[in-house]
């Protein structure tokens, strides 16, 4: 008997989009004025006729379609794909949080889902109370929680604050405690959705080593993360999703490398407005209208090898004159850490369109970086944003050799290999 623990067949999930927005703005006034329309909608719904929204196909979105796969016990599966590709939806279907529209998914064993850190935490309650509450929410029995309570608190490293209301915690402490509870869940199948990105590095490492331990006990793990290095290092298999479809399943390093190469790092969504002057006289001061990532011969490119120069040309428009303006551009990790920043010279700018070209060296171990942008002038406060575009740095030098280590050994890559000599 094969040891399949998850099997999905032609799994599909259809979402009705736009529905939420309409409801979010309901107020008493709109309710009353909409009453005839609402009543009509209900009547149609209950008489079996599809409501108006169902007819318009542009309101429908297949978040997943025709997904089939199987997973054997003990595998650690990495899931990669751009935002909106259906990764979270897949985890929700595995967990049974929502039902599929088509197909089915069968699972064997107890499932622990960690789709969010600290679901159900209440800020008024103390750390201790939250551990019990969150544990119960994640599916632990009270006796289990009691038995592991000391372990949990030790793992979190916040013994001193365990009887303090969580609202007095720093966000780091909050995350640690929430994570500690989740880490002591003992499921057969563990689903983790992009939550490793929060928390500091030391704590992340602690969690990953915990995941490694889990593998030894034969647990099956689904890991959704943007940290492709993590997938390469910890997973035994990887799945790549694109627009709700599985486009590749296989060895983690192959999947990740193809994924990185295909990512269009260059063009973001433009124009991107910047600097909103706060109300009452709200206006945008200008917008970024183009960002071009190139190599040193001005050819557009998104993927670089270690050591190659990266040129980023930023084009922006100013709707208002700005005195002593400085533009900054930087490379930012997905957790929002600015790895390096360059500043333009400072000058007075009138209305109009400008461009500035920055040059960096691809010497960072973080596989995929965002381009961050900042602007400040004498007249307005500093404005910065992280997600203007993307650059992918491959984990390989220009000559094809590979560096030692990964992001956990430091972000800046060094080529030097000093020799060892008798002293």
């Amino acid at each position, binding site marked *: 008997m094969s040891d399949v623990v998850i099997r999905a067949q032609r799994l599909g999930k259809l979402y009705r989009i736009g529905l939420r927005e309409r*409801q979010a703005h309901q107020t008493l006034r709109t309710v009353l004025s909409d009453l005839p329309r609402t009543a009509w909608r209900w009547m149609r719904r209950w008489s079996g006729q599809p409501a108006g929204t169902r007819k318009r196909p542009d309101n429908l979105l297949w978040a997943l379609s025709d997904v089939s796969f199987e997973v054997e016990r003990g595998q650690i599966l990495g899931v990669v794909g751009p935002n909106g590709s259906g990764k979270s939806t897949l985890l929700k279907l595995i967990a*049974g949080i*929502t039902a*599929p529209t088509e197909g089915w*998914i*069968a699972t064997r064993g*107890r499932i622990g889902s960690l789709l969010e850190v600290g679901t*159900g935490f209440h800020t*008024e309650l103390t750390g201790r109370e939250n551990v019990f*509450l969150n544990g119960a929410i994640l599916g632990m029995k009270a006796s289990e929680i009691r038995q592991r309570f000391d372990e949990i608190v030790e793992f979190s490293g916040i013994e001193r604050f365990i009887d303090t209301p969580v609202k007095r915690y720093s966000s780091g402490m909050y995350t640690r405690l929430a994570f500690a509870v989740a880490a002591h869940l003992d499921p057969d199948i563990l689903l983790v959705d992009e939550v490793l990105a929060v928390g500091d590095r030391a704590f992340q490492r602690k969690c990953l080593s915990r995941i490694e331990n889990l593998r030894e006990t034969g647990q099956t793990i689904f890991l959704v993360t943007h940290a492709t290095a993590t997938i390469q290092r910890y997973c035994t298999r990887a799945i790549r999703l694109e627009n709700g479809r599985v486009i590749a399943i296989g060895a983690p390093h192959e999947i990740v490398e193809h994924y990185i190469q295909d990512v269009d790092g260059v063009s973001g969504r433009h124009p991107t407005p910047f600097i909103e002057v706060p109300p009452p006289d709200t206006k945008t001061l200008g917008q970024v209208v183009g960002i071009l990532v190139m190599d040193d011969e001005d050819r557009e490119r998104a993927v670089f090898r270690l050591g190659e120069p990266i040129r980023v040309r930023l084009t922006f428009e100013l709707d208002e004159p700005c005195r002593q303006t400085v533009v900054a551009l930087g490379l930012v990790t997905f957790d929002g850490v600015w790895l390096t920043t360059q500043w333009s010279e400072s000058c007075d700018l009138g209305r109009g369109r400008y461009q500035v070209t920055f040059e960096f060296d691809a010497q960072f171990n973080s596989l995929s970086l965002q381009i961050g942008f900042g602007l400040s002038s004498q007249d307005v406060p500093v404005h910065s944003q992280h997600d203007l575009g993307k650059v992918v740095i491959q984990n390989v030098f220009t000559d094809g050799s590979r560096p030692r280590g990964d992001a956990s050994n430091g972000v800046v890559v060094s080529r030097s290999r000093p020799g060892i000599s008798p002293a």
Partner: protein
Amino acid sequence: MKLETPLDARVEQTTFQVGDARASEADRDALRSMPGASINRPPKGWPELQLRQIWAHRELIWFLGMRDVLVRYKQMFLGGLWAVMQPLAQMALYALVFGYIAKLKAENDLPYGVFIFAALVPWQYFANSMTGVSMSLVGNPGLLQKIAFPRLVLPFSSLISPIVDLTLATAIVVVMVLFYGPTPSWRILLIPAFYPLATLTAFAIGLWLAAINVRYRDVQHLIPFAMLFWFFMTPVVYSKQLVPHGVLSILLELNPMQLVTTGVRWAALGTDPPRLMSFLSIPGVLLILVSGLYFFRRSESSFADVV
């Protein structure tokens, strides 16, 4: 430690039987290698109630209920006192308006405040419970979107915290009876006997509203109006004897909350006992309860998507 039935929390948990008409030949082959698996698939037809699942999750219900209790009593400066102050203040106001100004008569010439308070306590409990149940889903979007558990856990857990207020308020009723009421008799022990009907009514109607609320947020704005209406259609601030005989008095008898308030007054103050006819409301409540459970189970597969 493992749960006895794996994944008993799942939205749709059924096992394909070999020979199940809904499973294709290929599906059946695929599943044969996974004995005991839980299956998540599109919901079809009428769901099973699976109340045993709820029992299996009693600890979660308890913890969520205690969360509400703790939060409520921590946030409030006066803590438990508030649970008592609120109905007392209302009693004072109603006694002023209906007893002193409108000069309504209480049964057996009881002090009007005491007469109101005995009925106000179960009414408040009912109103709190029903509002709690009907908001239990929309008030916990995080849980619905990120965690798999039987959705009925939420309405059940929201029944817990109103009980704390009820207990405190009932103690005040007893104290009042001892001071101002007639000589207490053994009947005072029967006060709590009427509470379960209030719980049941609140739960039955709350279930419907909770499920509808997820999809149509507008409903929650109608609840306060409906409650106000119901409040005055229940003998709380007036005596049932004042209602002229006719259609209205018959409707009143069929209101389950009338049975509760009249019953509690009878037990606490020795007024007229509820009429036999008013017990007819109980099957009505049960009908709403069972249909509400089915309606809830039927709509629950989309809660995570639309909440």
